[in-house]
């Protein structure tokens, strides 16, 4: 069954496994057809965003915070505006909706991040002004001439320091530097069975602490966009985005433009690995074009890509396993801290993905997790290949090795013994299907010459699952640790909501315009939750409510709410 498909190290296709679940006689699917784009790649003719030339192209570059955390007393652009070649200098005042969170397009999370910060910066490298000049060198020189009067604030860089009482507040809207899930808890919970009871019955308790590093996506093409005026009062935007309509939707929201006035072109991208989802460049490039009438390019240089571009966030995991002497894991408990950096971006979402993945590809009858999305004064984290999973898989599989050593078992046998099989109940309360972990482990053991017991060599994913293993726990221990008051579910980590997005306009829940930045705070600086108006049309006036700060806030800090699911809404 071995097909040599390269001249280098071998690839084999194990067509013998799961053969009766497949029809291998297809015409085109399964063929090693050349890439459609390969000729363009080898001739250097594939059109990346920066391969579109424009006469009179202007260049944009941002002035950035040198501090981890600081209040902005004043941004002075007068010197920059007088520099050679400078056409315009943008600050937060020029951005129509200068507050966003990427996942607002999915009705997930509060807008928390300015496009160009006006009052405060929360990480080193945060942009406060954008210079537009005739050449890249002139934009660079002028960005250095933007003067900011800073008031440096205490900062926090470690996730567990950040959640201690009295830690500097990174974002005023999230109490204790923790994202709020479902309007209810300061972490995402997973509760399946009763781990504490199971620990008491276990022969061994195995504990571990694991730290994943922050990692740069490092595409060879840096992130960027070129915007230009198009006919019919529209704007065209050539972009390196990984997510065309995410970027288009974000630009429409931030610029308060109907999406029909935007024409996004991309699709040929020089590597992404998750780093080109954030839609940082498109809104500012288009805004530059709107305000100058000329084509504008905004792209990161390599240093910015590495230190300003959002990395894969670091994660810290604590794992405790209850293990029987024969190697069966009967309970597994996680405490996780995701280092989101200064703003939410996609971290809150990564955690839900990670929690849905616990306890890894194993059937364990008692599982518990508390996972925190923690704000620190670091570069905001975002997606990267393996998003939400890579770090916890590192932790789980390093931990499995400790378990194997504790019970004196071959590590491959330990995995097969505990592997999930078709019909098993997973901790997120769905049945396991289409499993293949056992077969992967067996193939590797065979290739590497690792001897495993006949019983485990004969095991498979199709049989031996279900039954007791497929049942929900008789008892699940739940708790209300980490309860948070004053938030509504719709604007936090509850995608859509039970009654559907059409008739559930998110309730306006906003920080006040001017926010104190230091702790301690007497209570969360948000308004009390109000019931969502039922079936209110977007244009209907809001039900009468007590006068509050929300109605007085300046329009640019988020008067409109936009989502891919529910469109624009006036608050």
């Amino acid at each position, binding site marked *: 069954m071995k097909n040599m498909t390269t001249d280098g190290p071998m690839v084999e296709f194990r067509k013998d496994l799961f053969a009766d679940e497949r029809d291998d006689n297809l015409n085109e699917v399964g063929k090693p057809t050349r890439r459609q784009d390969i000729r363009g790649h080898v001739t250097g003719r594939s059109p990346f965003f920066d391969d579109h030339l424009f006469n009179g192209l202007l260049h944009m570059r941002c002035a950035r915070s040198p501090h981890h955390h600081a209040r902005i007393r004043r941004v002075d652009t007068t010197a920059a505006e007088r520099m*050679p070649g400078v056409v315009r200098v943008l600050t937060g005042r020029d951005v129509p909706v200068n507050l966003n969170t990427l996942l607002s397009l999915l009705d997930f999370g509060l807008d928390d991040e300015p496009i160009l910060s006006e009052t405060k910066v929360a990480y080193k490298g945060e942009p406060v002004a954008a210079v537009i000049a005739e050449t890249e*060198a*002139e934009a*660079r*020189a002028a960005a*250095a001439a933007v003067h900011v009067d800073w008031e440096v604030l205490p900062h926090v860089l470690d996730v567990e320091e950040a959640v201690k009482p009295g830690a500097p507040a990174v974002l005023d809207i999230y109490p204790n530097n923790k994202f709020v899930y479902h309007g209810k808890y300061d972490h995402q919970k997973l509760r399946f069975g009763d781990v504490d009871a199971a620990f008491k019955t276990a022969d061994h308790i195995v504990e571990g602490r694991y730290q994943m590093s922050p990692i740069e996506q490092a595409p060879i093409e840096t992130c960027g966009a070129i915007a230009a005026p198009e006919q019919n009062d529209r704007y065209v935007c050539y972009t390196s985005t990984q997510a065309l309509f995410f970027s288009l939707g974000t630009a429409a929201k931030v610029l308060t433009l109907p999406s029909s006035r935007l024409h996004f072109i991309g699709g040929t991208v020089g590597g992404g690995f998750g780093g080109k989802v954030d839609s940082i460049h498109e809104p500012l490039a288009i805004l530059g074009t709107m305000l100058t009438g000329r084509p504008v390019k905004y792209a990161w*240089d390599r*240093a910015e890509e590495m230190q300003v571009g959002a990395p894969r966030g670091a994660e810290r995991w604590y794992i405790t396993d209850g293990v029987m002497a024969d190697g069966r894991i009967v309970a597994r408990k996680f405490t996780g801290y995701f280092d989101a950096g200064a703003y939410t971006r996609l971290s809150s979402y990564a955690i839900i993905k990670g929690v849905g993945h616990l306890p890894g590809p194993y059937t364990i009858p008692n599982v518990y997790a508390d996972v925190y999305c923690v704000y620190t004064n670091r570069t905001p984290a975002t997606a990267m290949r393996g998003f939400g999973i890579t770090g916890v898989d590192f932790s789980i599989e390093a931990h499995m090795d400790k378990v194997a050593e504790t019970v004196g078992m071959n590590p491959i046998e330990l995995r097969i013994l505990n592997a999930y099989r078709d019909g098993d109940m997973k901790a997120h309360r769905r049945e396991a299907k289409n499993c293949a972990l056992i077969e992967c482990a067996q193939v590797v053991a065979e290739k590497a010459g690792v001897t495993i017991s006949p019983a485990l060599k004969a095991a498979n994913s199709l049989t031996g699952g279900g039954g007791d293993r497929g049942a929900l726990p008789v008892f699940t221990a739940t708790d209300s640790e980490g309860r948070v008051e004053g938030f509504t579910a719709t604007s936090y980590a509850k995608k859509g909501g039970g009654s559907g997005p059409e008739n559930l306009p998110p309730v306006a829940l906003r920080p006040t315009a001017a926010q104190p930045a230091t702790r301690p705070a007497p209570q969360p600086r948000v308004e009390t939750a109000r019931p969502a108006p039922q079936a209110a049309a977007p244009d209907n006036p809001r039900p009468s409510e007590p006068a509050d700060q929300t109605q007085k806030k300046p329009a640019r800090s988020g008067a409109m709410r936009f989502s891919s699911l529910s469109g624009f809404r006036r608050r």
Partner: protein
Amino acid sequence: MTTVETYATLDDAARAMGSDAAYLAGGTLLMRAVNEGNAPDRLVRLNNPNPKEFRSSGDKLILGAGLTMAGVLSLRELDFLHPVARVIGGPQIRNMATVVGNLFAEHPYGDFATALLALGAQVVPVGQGSPRPVEDIFRDRSRVGLISSVEFHRPRDPRAFGFLKVSRVKPKGVSVLSIAALLPREGGRIRGARIAFGAMGATPLRSAGAERALEGQSLDATSIDRAAAAAIEGLDPPTDQIASAWYRREVAGVHLKRLLTGMERI
């Protein structure tokens, strides 16, 4: 904003230099600074630099200002330096970077300069100045004028010179550290030991401890162990993205021992 001045000779270029000017040779460091907006306003360059600018006089080897790493690799007279030139950057960098420019390369670069320090090389200023030891350049690079060449004596036995570069990335990676050793032997005894370390300070530095441990000794397991144990004396390792000062201290002796053991076997 940047301006560029192009001259026919180094003498002309030297006259044009000033505190607001930088001399553009291979460009591998200076053009990056230009791209990043960190370079002086005036760039001074030669019209036709010679990438193989080299001559010898007796056992004196004279490497001209235009000589590139690729130029070194193309010259059989410099074969004992090929292992050094071969680990500077990647192929493109070696086609551009000059030997003299490497003397001005700041940490973590400057592995060729480390070799020149071990060789006791002298730099020859453009104009009237007399040759000065490369240490003078390291002391204050900003006050050095244009260099016309760097010169040193060919080791009588080329096997007396050894070089090792340790990097995390292979085959092209910046240094955890580099070591150059010149161990001339007379009657089996080392006379005039020079051990230089790269990436173990802001500039290439000599290991006073290792030199003392080797001087007058034969190169054997005992003297090598002593040199390794004393290697860190005279060095001032930095913490950077590649390694911490602690790590550099811990492994400096280990790598010196490996280099010297290899030289002992020859």
